[in-house]
């Protein structure tokens, strides 16, 4: 058992240390810690108000933690504390190496500009300036997310909910980020549309070797997409482990309740 701690992979990409957030007297998130490795998908599950979205916002640098740290290994290999990044650096990270898929696509897209421009905009932000190449790449990405390229000049306003969500994914992935945050990405969709989106996400995540932190209240989504889960309740992480282990052999009373509440298909 000597090499029990032998790691077969490299260093973590994202490390959270004792993250806490209070709003006045309310502790929305208490003492959350974990490491996320390249290519690893972590699902944060729990009911509304459990603190999962607060945690996601802290991890993605959108909300300052009351205490604790988040550090990220930048593309140059140097791990930096997010709190020490300047605003411009943080924005650049967000436009290039990170993605954020919102539950409501309208929050992640620019609804008044064309689909092609929505995807192309991220490329321009990283310095692409050749119109033809940008358009070709945007068109490639529409195909990858199963959107008919004939719709490239239409605005997302004319798209269905499922198409908007797929467009949001294309917009996020076009710069080949290493880390993507997802907040209930299948939340507002019909079941049939959900299955298609999940399937698409699953193959893209594997193909691009993405690290993902996904917040969901749907355990089926966690099972399909994630390697590991963190179960949250009342602002605390109450159980964590390999996804199939936590779902098939839940230990905590609340996790057992969650798992037993799933309706059989």
């Amino acid at each position, binding site marked *: 058992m000597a*090499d*029990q701690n*032998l790691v077969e992979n490299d260093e973590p990409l994202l490390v959270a240390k004792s993250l806490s957030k209070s709003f006045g007297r309310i502790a929305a998130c208490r003492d959350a810690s974990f490491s996320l490795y390249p290519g690893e998908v972590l699902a944060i599950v729990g009911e509304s108000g459990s603190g999962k979205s607060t945690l996601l916002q802290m991890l993605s640098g959108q909300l300052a933690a009351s205490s604790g740290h988040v550090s990220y290994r930048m593309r140059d290999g140097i791990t930096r504390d997010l709190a020490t990044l300047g605003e411009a650096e943080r924005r650049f990270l967000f436009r290039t190496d990170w993605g954020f898929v919102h539950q409501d696509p309208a929050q992640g897209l620019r609804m008044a500009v064309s689909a092609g421009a929505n995807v192309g905009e991220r490329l321009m932000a990283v310095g692409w300036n050749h119109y033809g190449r940008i358009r070709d790449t945007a068109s490639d990405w529409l195909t990858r997310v199963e959107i008919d390229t004939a719709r490239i000049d239409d605005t997302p306003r004319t798209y269905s909910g499922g198409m908007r969500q797929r467009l949001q994914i294309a917009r996020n992935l076009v710069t080949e980020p290493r880390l993507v945050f997802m907040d209930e990405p299948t939340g507002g969709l019909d079941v049939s549309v959900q299955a298609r989106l999940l*399937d698409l996400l*699953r193959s893209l995540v594997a193909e691009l070797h993405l690290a993902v932190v996904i917040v969901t209240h749907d355990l089926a989504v966690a099972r399909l997409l994630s390697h590991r889960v963190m179960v949250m309740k009342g602002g605390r992480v109450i159980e964590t482990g*390999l996804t199939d*282990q936590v779902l098939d052999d839940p230990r*905590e*009373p609340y996790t057992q309740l969650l798992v037993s509440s799933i309706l059989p298909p």
Partner: protein
Amino acid sequence: MTAMIDIADAQKTFTMHLQGGIELPVVSGVTFHVNPGECVVLSGPSGAGKSSILKMIFGNYRCDSGRIGIRHRGTLIDLATAEPRQVLNIRRATIGYVSQFLRAVPRVATIDVVAEPLIVNGMSRADAQARAGELLHRLNIPERLWQLPPATFSGGEQQRVNIARGFISDLPILLLDEPTASLDAANRAVVVELVAEKKRQGVAMVAIVHDDEIRHLIADRIVDVTSFAAAA
């Protein structure tokens, strides 16, 4: 000989919090080992804990105490205390598992369901699909079905897809949970053949098989699980 699986005094109890915290002892004192090229069959009545032991070896069920030693890339690692990432690495490179039922993703074609474990380990899609095709062919899944998702297949067909997916990789440990349960005689014979090939390749296997004839054909050793029955 160096064992591939070395389990010592493993114990598992379920605590059912929703039923007033009832303790449901599953197994205790589980101790056995499996050598390369050997197939150990777990025997015992339904409910004795055979599947639970298999799930503990795969890291799907947690182990409350004891050791689940797995030889992974030459080193014995205790799966009972391993980090999730390490368990995933072990599953990718060392332990395969053929469950009783196929859990497939909607929309994924049968050939890709079978080829996936090879692609995950870095084989090209074309090569992986070629090997998947060979196995599906051997297991009598007609080629016209390969591009369809297995969700609509019959129970026996799904089980054969599952077997193909489980047997396709060259992993040193293979766990088999009733691989022949819903198969006809011809396909059971194919599975027996596949198990024999794995043995020749030095794969260590643990199987649950209810069919006496199949058990007789594949078992090198039988471990009676009733001796691990947890005292209630």
